[in-house]
């Protein structure tokens, strides 16, 4: 937290948080749109329930309000690194499956992938400001994709996007929590500040 003491670091942190929140909001908006497109193009039922996908971090946290800021950042970073890998995998599969026939879906996936990557960068920067560098990505990535059938891959993709939408909400709340002035980075956010 030493770096956070300087005014420029505080400004930088606030700026990163602010833009991270808005990026999370846009990411959620885009993922919601992408979910509709994905369900339609993949021939899925929007109401289909998807069981927890292996390798996809869950947004839900049992003691979310008790987490410290660093912990929140680390959890977020881990999740978004995982999403980045999953989305890259989905993009590759989508290209293999549909080729260039459905460029719009591919572009939307790529855009979300970029946002996930950008958000991960925000988190890494915030962790640097916390005087704690981001953890290495080695070993932090998702497990190698299991050999799945086409439908299962579609369902898995649907699970990834739904979970990402959840994470976007949670990340915004986490960053608002971090943006609050004072050392109480671990304090719970007020209900009014919830997205």
């Amino acid at each position: 937290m030493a770096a956070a003491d300087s005014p420029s670091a505080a400004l930088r942190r606030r700026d990163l948080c602010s833009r991270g929140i808005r990026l999370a909001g846009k990411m959620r908006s885009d993922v919601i749109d992408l979910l509709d497109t994905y369900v339609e193009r993949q021939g899925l039922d929007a109401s289909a329930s998807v069981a927890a996908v292996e390798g996809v971090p869950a947004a839900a946290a049992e003691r979310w309000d008790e987490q410290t800021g660093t912990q929140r950042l680390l959890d977020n970073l881990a999740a978004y690194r995982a999403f980045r890998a999953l989305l890259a995998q989905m993009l590759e599969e989508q290209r293999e499956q549909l080729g260039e026939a459905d460029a719009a879906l591919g572009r939307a996936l790529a855009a979300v992938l970029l946002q996930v990557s950008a958000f991960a960068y925000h988190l890494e920067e915030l962790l640097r400001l916390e005087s704690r560098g981001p953890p290495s990505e080695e070993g932090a990535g998702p497990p190698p994709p299991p050999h799945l059938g086409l439908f299962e891959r579609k369902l898995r993709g649907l699970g990834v996007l739904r979970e990402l939408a959840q994470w976007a909400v949670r990340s915004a709340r986490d960053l608002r929590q971090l943006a609050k002035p004072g050392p109480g980075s671990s304090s719970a956010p007020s209900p009014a500040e919830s997205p």
Partner: protein
Amino acid sequence: MFSAWNWVAHDLYLLLNICFLEVSGGLVQSCGHIIPESPVLALGSNFTALCILNESCLDFGNIYANQIIWKIKNRVVPKEQYREINRTVSSVTFNDTSSLATPLTCNILADGQIEQNIYGITVTIGLPPEKPKNLSCIVHQVSKLTYPMTCTWNPGRHTFLDTHFRLKYRWPQENFPDCIPKDVNNSCTITDVQFFVNLEVWVEAANALGKAESDPLVLDPIEIVKPLSPHNLSVNSGILPTVLKLSWENRISAAVMKLKFNIRYRITGDTNWMQVPPEDTASPRTSFSVQGLRPYTEYVFSIRCMKEDGVGYWSDWSEEKTGVTTEDKPTKGPPIWRIIDASRSPASWTVHLMWKALEPFEANGVILQYEVTVRAKSSLSSPPEKYSVNTTNLTLKLPNGTYEVTVIARNRVGASPPSVLLIPASNSKAPVKNVRTLPKDGKLWVGWTAPNSYVLKYVIEWCLVSNSSDCITEWQNEPGNVQGTYLKGDIKPFKCYLITVYPLYADGQGSGQSVKAYLQQDRPSKGPTVQTKKVGKAEAVLTWNHLTVDEQNGFIRSYTIFYKTIDGNETAVTVDPSKTEYTLSSLTSDTLYTVRMMAYTDEGGRSGPDFTFTTQKFGKGEIEAIVVPVCLAFLLIVLLGVLFCFNKRDLIKKHIWPIVPDPSKSNIAQWSPQVPAKHNFSSKDQMYPEGSFTDVSVVEIEADDKKSFSEQDLKPFDLLKKEKSTSEGHSSGIGGSSCMSSPRQSVSDSDEGEATQNTSSTVQYSTVVLNGYRDQTPVQVFSRSESTQPLLDSEERSEDHAGGGDSATQRQQYFKRNGGQDETNTDRPCFERTKQITPANEGDLVGFAQLQISGQSSQPLGIELEKNTQEAALSDVLQTSTEGQTVRPETVEGSLLSVDEMPKSYLPQTVRQGGYMPQ
């Protein structure tokens, strides 16, 4: 000789070897090469090239580096730039590459005589790229999710080389593929960018001479977004007549960007936009109620947006949408005025009430009707009369008096406040003074001096004065506190307007004061047509008509009359515009003048048609002044002449009118008494046949001049005598001869001789000069004697003398007295002459009678007539006359009797016609 051939052979061999040193496997190897090979050089830099000869070439002859010649195109590079490095390498140095050109060749001068190319290179000269400047980017939203970013930069100077630009961008942790411009070198568009992460953007320019990068631009693309404008704008009227509610949709997600808005609006047909205060629309929204609008007015709305914090760009204005506010009550009553026609009846008026339709912003809706109330002020007891009309005028017939007229406009919502007009019995109040006009800014300003009393308002009436149309009155109201206004109407230039200002008081009205005015004047459209009313010797009265109002185009300030003669200078006279007549004076008499007339307004003049007139030769009374004195002088001279003649009458008579002896007293008459008396009555025509007398002169011969008689003069008498003797016993035959029968005349003379026996002692001889008609032989000349002396001697002498000659020539002989008669037609026979004589001429009738009698009584006459065709013709005529009874026998006989009673003296028939009178 051998040596020379040897040299030639050596040179050819050398040349072949230089060109084709070694041909192996189809490749041609040259004798050297240049380093560097096809370089790209910076403009203005120095450059050194090396030409390296192959060692193998040295074996074929004396080819060394010192024989190398460098050339640029076909121009030899100066040797000062050469340097021989060793025997196979020569270098050339250029201090400034701008002097270089392609190709640069290395040549060899074999044996100092034959120049041969060894190698050549292409030199490319250019500039390294400059650092791109002014890099800027903007993100255009093209759809809800698509945000391409376009960056532009200044590529710098032209490099003359193929220079590639690349737009590079990256996140701190991630690189993106470069954006390569297409067809341009100063902009590139990244198809999609992500917001909320700083993006580092820069431009790289590279060519063969180097590479340059612009300064990096670090930005979050969300800060440079130009969003799409809101769409689906709708306008709805609210409950209030001054409010319209706008609704729209934003096309950028609130998660991406929060927006603020600008709303602008204007009245349809107006060009000026009004804007809702920006602070009222500085927060995200999708609807807004615009207030403070006019009732029943159509408005046009448009909206735009940008990022709420003002970072970025405004969107374009949205499509325009219109909306109409609801109606409201009219805010004011219609302006009202009247025209009173009192000419039809002295006791009552025809009042034309007229009011103006309210302006839309005053009407606040559709005016359904007007309610007019007329109240007579003089009789308060009588109830007011009410009228409901849909038009803006009402004509009433009212007794003379004072009235109060009220007009109310009504629309769906309600009624307007009333407009009141007082119509007094007479305009007895003070009028305005000094009404004046002034064209200003394309409009006509009317000013006046207010009367001393308080004026409620003014009414300005005006109408276009024209010959072709009636004066249609227009009017406008002005408040009582102004003393000038612009006319609110379609005031046309070059047209005359009659403007009248009325002051309206609370209790009456002042009379109108008028003035004529033009918004803009021009030259008259034509000039006056001038003509003369009266033209004299030195003056001319010109008249013309005034130009019509439509032709004037302005106030006629003056007329100018231009007049000139054909070859003279033009004279101009300026005439007052009120005149229609002018007298030009000091003109030259009997001269053609051209006159024209110009009418002038303030803007210039125009000439009318030319008119020409000629001044008179004499002035008035001038002819009288000349003629009267001349006549008087003539009369005086005549009078004096008469008096003179009267006084000298004896002398004149002696010279001009000599006394003719009376033939009856002639002794000749006594000398030949045997001539039948009736023969004396031969007609004058017979006696004086019209022959070839062309001149008659009178010779006076004194009685004692007998001796001067020529014998020739007496020949006729001889002939007569001779014929007489031959026709003795047939004396009547002589008288019945034709008019040319001189013998009869001679007989007649003989008869006359009896009468002349008693005349005085003087004898007058007439000499008759005869000319032949054309080729006819002239008739012999006769002379008659008036001598009182007998001519017997001479006649007898001449008888012998003339006998042969005259008969031989068969000439007709005539005798004619000098009676002053013009008888010159020798062709005309006597009978024609007879024909010409009117029956009323008694003398002639007598002649006829004589002839008739002669013809009937003497047959032998016909024998002589056969010798003369004229005589024969005469005979025919005589017969015809008799048969035709042209002359009545009674008259003839009567005449005969009277003639018989006349004294047997020589008295020609002309006596009675004022002819020769014996004195």
